[in-house]
């Protein structure tokens, strides 16, 4: 109803699903219209929020700084984050942080096609901040819940347009993502049990 442009929600997604989200699209012909990646569980994403373990940073730029960060989720799957001169704050954070460290990233999904014809999915950060483990754990639970909600909608009879689109564009069993959500939650439980067992 409102005429003010609404801010895009930041999707919660594990790396296994995110890295499979190779199909991009726009909702209008306008040059400045937002680009969405299509999550295989049937939702569009123009922004994501990730909390994980930064395991490695590297300046992969040739002429100017271009920082790559690897952020790993509890399943051991990796989000690739790239920040250059147009993301100076995020680039500075990647330059300064000492891995391993827990980080929060708000960013935009980006895809690019390799010479071999594969499509790689990465994150262009709007912000990266160093956080603690409880924030990471909260994200894991939240992301598992959001993922399972999407899968539930995907499998219901009342498919919306993005669920249909995912059916058309991908040949990926959503079972993979259900398992990713489950394994991520189990890893938290294991940590807890281990913590309780030790005096």
């Amino acid at each position, binding site marked *: *109803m*409102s*005429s*003010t442009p*609404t*801010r*895009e*929600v*930041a*999707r*919660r997604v594990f790396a296994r699903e995110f890295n499979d989200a190779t199909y991009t699209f726009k909702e209008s012909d306008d040059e400045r219209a937002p680009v969405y990646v299509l999550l295989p569980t049937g939702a569009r994403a123009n*922004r994501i*929020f990730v*909390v994980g373990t930064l395991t490695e940073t590297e300046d992969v730029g040739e002429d100017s700084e271009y920082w790559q960060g690897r952020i790993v989720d509890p399943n051991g799957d990796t989000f690739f984050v790239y920040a250059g001169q147009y993301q100076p*704050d995020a680039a500075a954070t990647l330059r300064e942080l000492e891995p391993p460290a827990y*980080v*929060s*990233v*708000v960013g935009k999904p980006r895809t690019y096609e390799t010479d071999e014809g594969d499509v790689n999915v990465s994150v262009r950060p*709007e*912000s*990266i*901040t*160093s*956080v*603690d483990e*409880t*924030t990471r*754990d*909260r*994200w*894991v*639970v*939240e*992301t*598992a*819940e*959001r993922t*399972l909600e999407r*899968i*539930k909608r995907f499998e219901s009879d009342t498919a919306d347009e993005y669920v249909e689109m995912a059916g058309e564009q991908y040949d990926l069993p959503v079972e993979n993502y*259900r398992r990713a*959500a*489950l394994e991520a*939650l*189990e890893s*938290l*439980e294991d940590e*807890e049990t281990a913590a309780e067992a030790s005096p």
Partner: protein
Amino acid sequence: MTDLRTHAEEIHEQFSDQLEIDVEDVESRLDTLVNEYKVPLEEARRSVTNGYLDEAGMERDDLGGGGGNEHVELADIDTAEQWVDVTAKVVDLWEPRSDSIAQVGLLGDESGTIKFTKWAKSDLPELEEEHVYDLGNVVTDEYQGNYSVKLNRTTTIEEVEEDIEVGDDTRTVEGALVDIQNGSGLIKRCPEEGCTRVLQNGRCSEHGEVDGEFDLRIKGVLDDGNEVQEIIFDQEATEELTGIELEEAKDMAMDALDTTVVADEMRAATLGRYYRVTGPTLGRYVLVNDLEILDEPVDAEQALIKARSI
């Protein structure tokens, strides 16, 4: 076709007291515009309505909703250009900024509050603060996502004896803080009495170049993965959120010869973390009165039981 018919009936009803017209006539005018000239329906409706207004020698303000408006609660107003009836208390009267406005201020009912404007040319009786009125035939309006109601010359005003407990529209939202917007951190406000506008490059949009007064605030965005909510922290809430107090922020800015270092520091300390905030709704914002940092360990068990059951 049925769609045009519905619109035709609505227009017909608006004019049935003033003009001898039938629904078919209205519908055929709409049909010509929409189907022959490919005018969007909304524009066609406006055009046809204006045509009848001319014929009847009426002003747009005279129209009203054709009688029988919906009586609504203030918090439910979420569409512009609706004719509605409300019962509300005048919570606050503000200084009108223009001669064309007779009165401007805040109305409240149990559900919340909304801004109102009363035009000078509408020639309506004075509303008094703390009094409760039945207001018939007001028009809703929207500006940058904020709704208001406008009193016009067809508006009926009747004072009501009973008092209303005005609701403050308090909401609780939680999520990750995903953005701190421009205009956050250490800011300067216009010192002119009753102004408090935030200065841009030392200038107030109303009073020009002024010697501003320092303040802290954060305009942020909470996001739970399904919805976003814009929130505002005032000085006190900003200090609680960031641990940075006004004096300290001034020192930081002084050392760096730059006020933006304050917002940068605040971003590093707060972005990407989870919060629960409670406060009154003001337009598209929730004003943070109560802040809870969600940093206690989370329990994965419930989620796991649910996940396994699917």
